C-alpha cells in the first residue's frame, strides 16, 4: 500500500513538474512575442519573468523529488527533452538570475523599437538557455548551444553598432566558435558511440574526447587562456543581458563539461582532473589580478567572472581527482562545492551587473575614477551592490564564503592526500585560492570605495538619483538571496552532493558540517555576528561623535585630491611588476619655468592579448594573405594547377600509393 501511494505521489510530482516546465517555456514564448507586438516591452518582460519563475520552480521540484521527468539522454538524433536533477539545478540557476534580470529590464528598456527587439532577444536568450539545459539528444544540445552563443551577440548589436561593439562581437563569436569545434567533435563522438545513451565511453577515444571537450567548453566558460572574448563581450551588452551572460551562460558551459566528464566518459584518469585544476587555478588568480587593474566597472566584473569560473573549475577538478584516488565522499563534497559556487556566483554576479546597469542609467559612464559618493545618492542600489561585493569577495556570513569555504576545504584535503603529486597540486591550489580570495577582497574594497564612497568625482554623481522600483526590487531580491544562501547553505549542499559522483549523502542542516573540518555553522555565526555588532555599535553611539573634516594634512578634502584606482592598487602592481608589465608616461609641460600641465597615462596591457592572441591572429592573417596568391588571376596558372593535380594523382597511382 504505502509503496503504491508513494508511487502515485511520484507520478503526481512528475506530472506537475512536467506541466511546470511546459508552462514556463510557453509563457516565456508568449512574453517574448508580446514584447514585440505590444507598444512597450514592459508587459512582455513581466510575462517572461513569470515564465522563468515557473521553470525555476519545476527545476527545484525535480531537484527535490530526485525523479527525472521527460526523456532520458539518447544517442540517436531523434529530438528529445527532459529534466533530471542536474538540469533542475541549472534551471534554478537560470531562474534566480533570469527573473530579476527581466524585471530589471522592464524598467531599464525604453519603449521604442530597440527596446522591443531587445526584449524579444531576452526572451529568446532565456529559451535558448532553458533549451540547452533540457536538451536530451545531440542535435538539440548542439543547436541550443549555438543559439546560446548567438543571441547575446545579436542583442549587443541591437543595442549598439559602433566599431568597438562590432569588433567585440566578432571576437566573441570567433573565439567561441573555434573553441566550439571541440564541443562539436566531442559531442558527436560521444553520441555516435552511444555514450549519451548510458554507456560511458572509455579507452583511447575517451582521452581525445576529454581534451576536445575541455577545450570547447572551457572556451565558452571563459577559462584562461581561452577567455579573451569574455572581458570584451560582457561589458558591451545591456546590463540585464550581461547579467545573464556572466551569471548563467558561462555556467552552462560548465554544465556541459560536467555532463561529459562525470556522466558520459568513463573515469578519464588523473590527468584530466589535474589539468582542470591547473586551468582553474590559472583562471582564478589571473582573472582577479587583471580585474584589480581594470578601470571600467563592467570590464572589471567580467574579469571577476573568469575568476569565479576558475573557482568552480577548481572544485570540479578536485572532485575528479578525489574520484580517481578513491575518496568518493570528498569527491562528492568538491562537486557540491563547485555547483554551490556556480549558483552563488550567478546570484552575486547578476546582482553586480544589474547594479552596474543601474549606475550607468543614473550617471552614464562607468569609469571607476569618475564615480564616487553614490551610496548617499542611491542608498538602495548602493547597499545591494555593496552586499553583492562582500559576497563575491567571499566574506562571512554571505554565500560566497560558504562555497569558497567548501572548495578550500576540499582542495586542502587534496593537499593531505596520500600521493605526493596530488598533495602538491592540492596545496598549491589551496594557496592559490586563498590568495584569490584575498585579492578579491582587495579588488572589491577598491570598487566599493571608488563607486559608492568618498566624494563624488563628477557632477552627475553629485546629482545621481535612485532608479525605479522594479530595478531596485530585482537587486534587493538578489542581495537577499545572497544573504539567505550564506546563512542556510546546508539546505542545498546535501542535495548537490547527491547529484555528484558516488551518490554520497551528507548530514543535512542549516550550516555545513563536513567530516574532517571544524564545521561551518553559518546560521550561528551570522546571528552571533549580527548580535555582537549590534551591541558594540549601540555602545559606541554615546557619547555623540563630533563632526570634523577628514585629516588630509590640514587641507580640505577635495575630489581632485581623492585616490583613484591606479593609486590604490599600486603596491600590488609594483610587487608583481614582472606579471603586469605596466607601462606609463608622464608629460610635464613647462613654460617660463612654470609647470603648466601634467598629463599622466598608465595602463596594464592584457598579456594574453599582447603575447598570445595578437601574434597568433596576425600570423594567421599573414598566412591567409599568402594563400590568397593562389587566385593570381592568370588563366595559365590555373591550367597549370589542373595539370599539376592530374600529374600528382597519376604519379601517386603509378607508384602504388593509391593502391
Amino acid at each position, binding site marked *: 500500500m504505502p509503496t503504491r501511494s508513494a508511487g502515485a505521489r511520484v507520478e503526481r510530482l512528475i506530472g506537475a513538474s512536467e506541466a511546470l516546465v511546459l508552462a514556463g517555456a510557453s509563457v516565456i514564448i508568449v512574453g517574448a512575442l508580446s514584447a514585440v507586438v505590444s507598444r512597450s516591452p514592459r508587459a512582455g518582460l513581466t510575462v517572461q519573468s513569470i515564465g522563468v519563475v515557473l521553470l525555476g520552480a519545476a527545476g527545484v521540484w525535480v531537484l527535490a523529488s530526485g525523479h527525472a521527468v521527460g526523456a532520458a539522454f539518447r544517442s540517436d538524433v531523434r529530438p528529445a527533452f527532459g529534466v533530471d536533477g542536474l538540469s533542475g539545478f541549472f534551471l534554478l540557476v537560470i531562474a534566480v538570475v533570469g527573473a530579476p534580470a527581466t524585471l530589471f529590464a522592464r524598467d531599464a528598456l525604453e519603449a521604442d523599437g530597440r527596446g522591443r527587439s531587445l526584449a524579444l532577444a531576452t526572451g529568446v536568450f532565456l529559451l535558448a538557455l532553458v533549451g540547452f539545459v533540457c536538451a536530451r539528444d545531440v542535435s538539440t544540445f548542439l543547436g541550443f548551444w549555438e543559439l546560446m552563443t548567438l543571441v547575446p551577440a545579436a542583442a549587443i548589436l541591437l543595442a549598439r553598432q559602433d566599431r568597438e561593439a562590432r569588433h567585440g562581437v566578432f571576437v566573441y563569436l570567433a573565439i567561441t566558435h573555434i573553441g566550439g569545434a571541440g564541443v562539436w567533435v566531442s559531442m558527436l563522438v560521444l553520441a555516435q558511440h552511444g555514450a549519451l545513451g548510458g554507456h560511458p565511453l572509455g579507452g583511447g577515444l575517451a582521452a*581525445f574526447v576529454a581534451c576536445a571537450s575541455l577545450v570547447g567548453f572551457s572556451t565558452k566558460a571563459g577559462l584562461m587562456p581561452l577567455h579573451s572574448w569574455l572581458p570584451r563581450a560582457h561589458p558591451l551588452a545591456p546590463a540585464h543581458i550581461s547579467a545573464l551572460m556572466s551569471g548563467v551562460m558561462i555556467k552552462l558551459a560548465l554544465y556541459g563539461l560536467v555532463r561529459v566528464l562525470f556522466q558520459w566518459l568513463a573515469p578519464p584518469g588523473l590527468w584530466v582532473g589535474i589539468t582542470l585544476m591547473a586551468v582553474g587555478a590559472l583562471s582564478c588568480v589571473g582573472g582577479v589580478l587583471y580585474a584589480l587593474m581594470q578601470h571600467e566597472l563592467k570590464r572589471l566584473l567580467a574579469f571577476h567572472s573568469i575568476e569565479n569560473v576558475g573557482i568552480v573549475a577548481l572544485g570540479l577538478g578536485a572532485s575528479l581527482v578525489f574520484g580517481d584516488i578513491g575518496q568518493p565522499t570528498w569527491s562528492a563534497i568538491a562537486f557540491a562545492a563547485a555547483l554551490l559556487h556556480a549558483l552563488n556566483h550567478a546570484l552575486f554576479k547578476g546582482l553586480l551587473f544589474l547594479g552596474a546597469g543601474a549606475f550607468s542609467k543614473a550617471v552614464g559612464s562607468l569609469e571607476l575614477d569618475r564615480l564616487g559618493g553614490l551610496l548617499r545618492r542611491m542608498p538602495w542600489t548602493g547597499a545591494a551592490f555593496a552586499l553583492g561585493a562582500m559576497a563575491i569577495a567571499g566574506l562571512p556570513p554571505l554565500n560566497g564564503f560558504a562555497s569558497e569555504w567548501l572548495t578550500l576545504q576540499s582542495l586542502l584535503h587534496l593537499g593531505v592526500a596520500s600521493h605526493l603529486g596530488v598533495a602538491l597540486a592540492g596545496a598549491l591550489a589551496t594557496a592559490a585560492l586563498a590568495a584569490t580570495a584575498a585579492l578579491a577582497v582587495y579588488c572589491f574594497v577598491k570598487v566599493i570605495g571608488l563607486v559608492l564612497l568618498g566624494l563624488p568625482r563628477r557632477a552627475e554623481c553629485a546629482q545621481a538619483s535612485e532608479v525605479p522600483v522594479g530595478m531596485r526590487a530585482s537587486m534587493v531580491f538578489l542581495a537577499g538571496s545572497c544573504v539567505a544562501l550564506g546563512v542556510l547553505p546546508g539546505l542545498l549542499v546535501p542535495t548537490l552532493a547527491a547529484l555528484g559522483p558516488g551518490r554520497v549523502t551528507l548530514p543535512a542542516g542549516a550550516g555545513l558540517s563536513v567530516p574532517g573540518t571544524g564545521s561551518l555553522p553559518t546560521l550561528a555565526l551570522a546571528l552571533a555576528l549580527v548580535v555582537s555588532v549590534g551591541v558594540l555599535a549601540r555602545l559606541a553611539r554615546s557619547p555623540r561623535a563630533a563632526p570634523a573634516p577628514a585629516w588630509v594634512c590640514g587641507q580640505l578634502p577635495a575630489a581632485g585630491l581623492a585616490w583613484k584606482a591606479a593609486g590604490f592598487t599600486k603596491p600590488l602592481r609594483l610587487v608583481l611588476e614582472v606579471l603586469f608589465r605596466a607601462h606609463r608616461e608622464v608629460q610635464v609641460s613647462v613654460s617660463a619655468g612654470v609647470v603648466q600641465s601634467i598629463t599622466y597615462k598608465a595602463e596594464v596591457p592584457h598579456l594574453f592579448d599582447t603575447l598570445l592572441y595578437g601574434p597568433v591572429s596576425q600570423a594567421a592573417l599573414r598566412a591567409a594573405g599568402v594563400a590568397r596568391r593562389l587566385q593570381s588571376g592568370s588563366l595559365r596558372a590555373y591550367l597549370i*594547377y589542373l595539370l599539376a593535380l592530374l600529374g600528382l594523382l597519376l604519379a601517386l597511382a603509378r607508384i602504388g600509393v593509391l593502391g
Partner: protein
Amino acid sequence: MTDVLLIAVPAVPLVGALLVRLPRTPGGADRMNLIGANISTVLALTASVVGFVHGARGLHGSWFVLDHAGACFLAVIAVVGWCSAMVSPTYLASAGKSLFTARRARAWYYTAFYLFWAALLALALVKNLGVAWLLIEATTGASALLVAYSGRRNALEAGWKYLVLTTFGLAVALLGILILFAGLAPHGGTLSTLDWQSIARHAGGLPHQTALFALILILVGLAAKIGWAPVHNWLPDAHSEAPPPVSALLSAALLPTVMLIAWRVVLTLGVAVPHHLADHLMLAFGLASLAIAVPFLWRPMAWKRLLAYSSLEHMGILALGIGFASPLATVGVIIHLAGHALAKSLGFYTAIPLARHDPSSAQRAPRGLARLSTPVAAGAGISLATLSGLPPSPLFFSELLILLGGIAAHQITSVSIAAVLMALGFLGLAHALIETLAGESHGHRWRSGRTVRLAGRLTVGLTLGLLALSVSAYLLADSHAGASLMRGIA
C-alpha cells in the same frame, strides 16, 4: 506515362528556348518566359514527386533513371530555376548594356537560360555516363554566354576562364570515360555499356589499374567543373560576374548536379578500386576545398564574390558528406544541398537591389544594410546566417548529420579537421554578416523600388522554405531515407 513525363521535363524548356525568340517586344519575351518557367517547373516537380513515390529502387527507362537522389536534385533544380526565371525580368529591366545588341539581348538571354536549365534538368535524370558528359559540356556552352552577358570586360574575362578551364577539365574526364569504356568493351562496346547499372555490374571485373586511372581522370575532370579546390579558380570569377539569376543557377544547381554525376561514378566505379579509394578521393577534395576557401572568406569582399567562395566551401562539405558514405551523412548531403540552394540563391537575388542602389557594391563589401533597407538587409542577413550554418538553419542540421556520419564511418580525423575548418570559415562569414548588417553606412534609406520589393518577396518565400526544411531535417533526420538515397542510384 512516366516516360512521356520525363521526356517532357527537359523537352519543355528546350522548346521554351526556341519560343522565347518569337516575341518581338521585351514584354512578350517576359510573358513567354513566365509561361515556360511555370510549365517546366510543374513538370519537373511532378516528376520528382513520382520519383519519391515509387523510386525506392529507381525507375529505369529508355534513357533515364529516376531514384530518390535524382528526385531531390530534380526538385532543387526546378525550384532554383523557377526563382531565377521569375527574377530575370526585373534583372533585365535594371541591367544596362550587354554582350549582345540591345534588340536581341533579351532573346539571347532567355534562350541561353532555357538551354542551360534544360541541360541541368536532363543531367539529373540521365542513366548513362557518356550522355551525362555530353550534357555537362552543353551546360558549359550555354552558361558561358550567360556569364559574360553583361559584356563588361571583367565579365568577358570570367566567362573565358570558365569556358577554357571547364572544357579542358572535361576533356580529361572524357579520356577517363574512354579508358573506362575500353575496359568495359568486352561487355558489349555499345553506348549502354556506360549505363550506371552496367558499370556497377561489370566494375568488379575491370582490370584494377584501368578502373583506378579511369576513376582518377574522371574525378579530376569533373572537379574542374564542380569547382573543387585546387581547380576551382573559375568559380569565384564566374559567380561574381554573371547576372545574379545565372549566378544562383550556377551555384545552387549546376555545381551540385555535376557533383551528382561524380557521386554516381564513385558509387558505381568505386567498388573496382581497393579500400574505399574513391571515398578517400572525395574526402581529399572536400577538405582541400574547405581549406582553400577559408583564407578567401577572411577578406572583406564584394557581395557576390563572397557568396562564390562560400559555394566553394559548401561544395567541400558536400564532397565530405559523399565521401563519408554513411546513411546519416547522405541524408545530411541532401538537406545540405537543398538548404544551400535556397540560401545561396536568395543571397544572389539580393545582389539585384544591391547593384541597383549601390553600384559600388560590385567592388566593395556592402556595409550597414540594416540602416539602408530592411528587406534587402533581411535577405542578405538570412542568406549569410544560413550559409554560415547557424541554428535554426537547415545547414546547421545537415552539417551536424554529415559530421555524425563521418564519425559513424570512423573518419574521426577528417571530421575533426573539417570541424575546425568550418569554424575558421565561419569567422569570415560572421565578420561579413556583422559588417553587412551593422557596419557604418552612408547615404539615406533606399526607397522601396521594384528591385527592393522583389527582394522582400523572395526573402519571405525562401525563408519559409528554409524553415520548413530545417523543421523536417530536425524531426526526420533519423528516418531511414539515407539508405534508399544511397541504394537507388545503381
